[in-house]
């Protein structure tokens, strides 16, 4: 018998950069799914009303003094979750592409104790996800490399729709990749002997803002992430100890 979601202190980490049009709806939808979720919006140096919209809706707002990039922003959220003793954290983008009604799918394996990190994948099942050819090729390459490194089939390495338990929160609070973090975070988790599971979810088209990865940057992105994975294979990783539940 899996434990109930309501048994846990739970928090939604919402990284947002100039998402004033969508962040309010994301917060409302998370509340509509489960009003027991605390919400922390990490404003990564927005120049619009992102932080104001989020604060008006009663979310915790962490305003970074300048843009740290998605990795630094998300880690800020995990640090908040760790310091405040949360048991479960979910990561949902502030641009509206992640549908909070899909939360049960990524939470279930974590609640059932089957996974420490559960990633929602666009590709393994329902959800007609469309993207450019080049992007699809890039995603395929990463899926192949990551699957080989973690010895487990992974289809969507760039998904930022994730759920973690306390072990995952502790790991990410202490160490999270910079720049383009999702691929590396997935690999890092497995290296630290955390259990990874990927489940199919439906995702929406982005509601506003612009993707953080433009065509020009994708070559740099691929090189940097592949280098990080390669070098990471030669690092030693500590296995985090299990904390007592509070």
């Amino acid at each position, binding site marked *: 018998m899996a434990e109930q979601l309501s048994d846990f202190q739970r928090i939604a980490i919402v990284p947002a950069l100039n998402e004033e049009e969508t962040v309010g709806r994301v917060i409302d939808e998370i509340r509509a799914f489960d009003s027991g979720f605390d919400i922390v919006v990490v404003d990564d140096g927005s120049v619009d009303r992102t932080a104001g919209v989020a604060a008006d809706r009663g979310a915790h707002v962490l305003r970074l*003094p*300048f843009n740290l990039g998605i990795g630094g922003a998300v880690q800020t959220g995990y640090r908040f979750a760790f310091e405040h003793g949360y048991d479960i954290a979910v990561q949902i983008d502030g641009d509206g592409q992640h549908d909070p009604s899909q939360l049960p799918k990524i939470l279930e394996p974590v609640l059932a104790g089957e996974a420490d990190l559960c990633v929602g994948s666009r590709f393994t099942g329902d959800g007609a996800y469309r993207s450019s050819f080049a992007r699809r090729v890039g995603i395929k390459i990463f899926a192949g490399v990551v699957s080989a490194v973690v010895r487990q089939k992974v289809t969507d390495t760039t998904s930022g729709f994730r759920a973690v338990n306390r072990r995952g929160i502790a790991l990410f609070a202490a160490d999270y990749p910079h720049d383009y973090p999702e691929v590396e975070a997935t690999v890092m988790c497995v290296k630290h002997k955390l259990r990874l599971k990927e489940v199919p979810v439906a995702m929406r088209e982005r509601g506003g803002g612009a993707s953080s990865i433009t065509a020009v940057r994708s070559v740099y992105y691929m090189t940097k992430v592949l*280098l990080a994975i390669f070098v990471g294979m030669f690092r030693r990783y500590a296995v985090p100890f299990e904390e007592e539940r509070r």
Partner: protein
Amino acid sequence: MTPLPVSIAAAVASFLLLVVVFELIRSRRLRERYALLWLLTGVVLLALSLWRDGLNTIAGWFGVETYPPAILGAVGALFILLVLLHYSTVISRLSDQNTILAQRLALLEQQLREG
């Protein structure tokens, strides 16, 4: 033609550069984003040292007939220039961010004292 000892010395030196950069990343003293230019430098210099005919051809393009390894030095200098320029932009960004942090800290302290 490039003297063989020069090619060997250049290849060893660029290989060492690659090894040092790799170890710095592995031990987390150098972030990947700041290592990429160094790695590119090492790879290009290693390629030019090992591919001796190529170095001669390139030297020919630039009218360097007498001593092709001069091209190695020129390419190395060019990359060092690139790395330095890159670091200048990085330092500028860091110094801007440092200013913002100091200002925010001053505002916070003022709030704590008077709040």
